[in-house]
């Protein structure tokens, strides 16, 4: 089950499609370049998880549109169990998200005929992008925005924000699925997050990286050091946020940190060919 519709060349033209296996399709949106720059590297965007996904969705749309204007082929997609992709929320795991990211990279390479890609990820999406880049020869650049280096700390934050564990029909001693602002965190994901220490992973093969962070915190420092393994060049950018990515407010507002977005798009435009 895959349907791609390419619409007109309007400025905002977005091309949504299902991709991946027909029994577990993933939803993605392809943004064609709006300028003939001859770029041979595409950009795949990796969303964060849960409420952060909803709050950042509009910022991702803007990043994609701006990168398209800068001449890039761009692809953003929903991991399985999230957004419009197949699966239930409990199906979302780090491993499956990394796998989905690999499929998204292949999809963009096939669709846009680009040889290499840059990965952009926010929060947990940054961690997913970093892992997807580890064994990939076709990922040349990584942009990690407020990405998580310490999964155990993130899990602790999720637990503290969680509603009561959902133990219905679940025997044994746990762990059980718990919900954070309406999004389930399944035992498999909890296990993965508890074990996630990005600097214990194998170094990424990406040639260049940008680490963007709200403050010069531990996660940013760890990520920069890890990405710089072997003498690779890592740029860093401090971009204070006006709020929290996981916030739920009375207006259902989205957060669009314009300065950070402009800086990120500027970096990608100048560093990625």
């Amino acid at each position, binding site marked *: *089950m895959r*349907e791609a*519709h390419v619409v007109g060349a309007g400025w905002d*033209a*977005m091309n949504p499609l*299902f991709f991946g296996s027909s029994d577990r399709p993933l939803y993605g949106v392809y943004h064609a370049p709006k300028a003939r720059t001859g770029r041979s590297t595409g950009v795949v965007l990796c969303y964060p998880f849960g409420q952060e996904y909803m709050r950042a969705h509009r910022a991702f749309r803007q990043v994609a549109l701006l990168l398209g204007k800068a001449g890039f082929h761009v692809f953003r997609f929903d991991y399985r169990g999230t957004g419009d992709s197949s699966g239930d*929320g409990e199906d979302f795991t780090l491993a499956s998200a990394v796998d989905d990211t690999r499929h998204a990279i292949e999809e963009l390479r096939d669709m846009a005929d680009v040889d290499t890609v840059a990965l952009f990820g926010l929060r947990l999406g940054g961690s997913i992008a970093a892992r997807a880049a580890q064994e990939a020869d076709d990922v040349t650049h990584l942009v990690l925005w407020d990405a998580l280096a310490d999964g155990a700390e993130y899990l602790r934050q999720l637990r503290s924000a969680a509603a009561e564990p959902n133990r219905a029909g679940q025997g044994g001693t746990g762990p059980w699925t718990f919900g954070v*602002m309406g999004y389930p965190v399944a035992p498999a994901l909890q296990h993965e997050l508890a074990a996630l220490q990005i600097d214990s992973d194998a170094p990424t093969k990406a040639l260049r990286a940008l680490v963007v962070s709200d403050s010069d915190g531990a996660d940013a420092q760890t990520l920069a050091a890890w990405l710089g393994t072997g003498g690779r060049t890592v740029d860093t950018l401090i971009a204070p946020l006006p709020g929290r990515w996981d916030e739920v407010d009375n207006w259902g*507002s*989205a957060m669009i940190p314009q300065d950070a977005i402009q800086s990120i798009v500027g970096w990608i435009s100048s560093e990625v060919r």
Partner: protein
Amino acid sequence: MIERIVQFGSVASLTGVLTEPKSGRAVLDVPPVLLINSGILHKVGSCRLYVKLARALADAGIASLRFDLSGLGDSDVRKDALPFEESAVAETQEAMDYLTRLRGWSAFQLGGLCSGADVAHMTAVVDARVVGMASIDARTHVTPAYWWHNYKLKLLKPQFWVRWVSLRVGGNGPPSLTGGPDDSTFEVPAYVRVIPSRDVLAAELRTIALRRVNMLYVFTDGLDFYNHQGQHRRAFRDVPFGDCLTESHLRGADHIITDPTLQQRAIEMHVQWARATKRARVSDVASTLAASADFG
């Protein structure tokens, strides 16, 4: 269940996901459901509500379309300057037009939360193809019973009277902890929710009720103008709802229904209600209008 991406729209390219039951599983006399954005949340819905609802409807044999209004989610921005209240209705009608061309469907149910419920209401007022309307936290009005429910417990608490006295002598209440959407880095819905006067809303509801549109109103505890089961029907006791109105107070639920158990209950309620909406209702319109004098 089969999901496919669709794009339609004459002024802006609108994107949606059409979810249909597998071949042979469709309940043919139940109209499809259109799910309308709440605020600026894209078609996935708060806490993925619309995705789960669409798939539950398909499992029950009912098709649905969740789509993004212009400028939201994966839909283009309109190039004209039509205000949201008009463009949202026009685009919902375009979605119905599209499904008529695609599948031959002629009657529809609309569903939405908050501003999505408002758009469903505004569309139902002007478009007779709407035979069902499921709203979560729709616009309603307070009643004397609302005030009774609001104050009956507070009156017994000393803190209430301390605050009441302090306000009367010029003191300020506790400072607001929310700053408000005044920063350019936040994008909030362009739609400012203004609740029409009771009489205006009653007249519109009367128009809908006289067409015998099947209505489901679910209210959470996330509104500051609803607090007890039956308030909506009482607030509009002059509207001839008859058996077309189902009202449910989803106690304990916040506005975006983050509790999975309560969200599941809302989904089940919607599916059960949607199955009861028949295409035949649209043919009842003439006879209903003829009998409208009975409602005075």
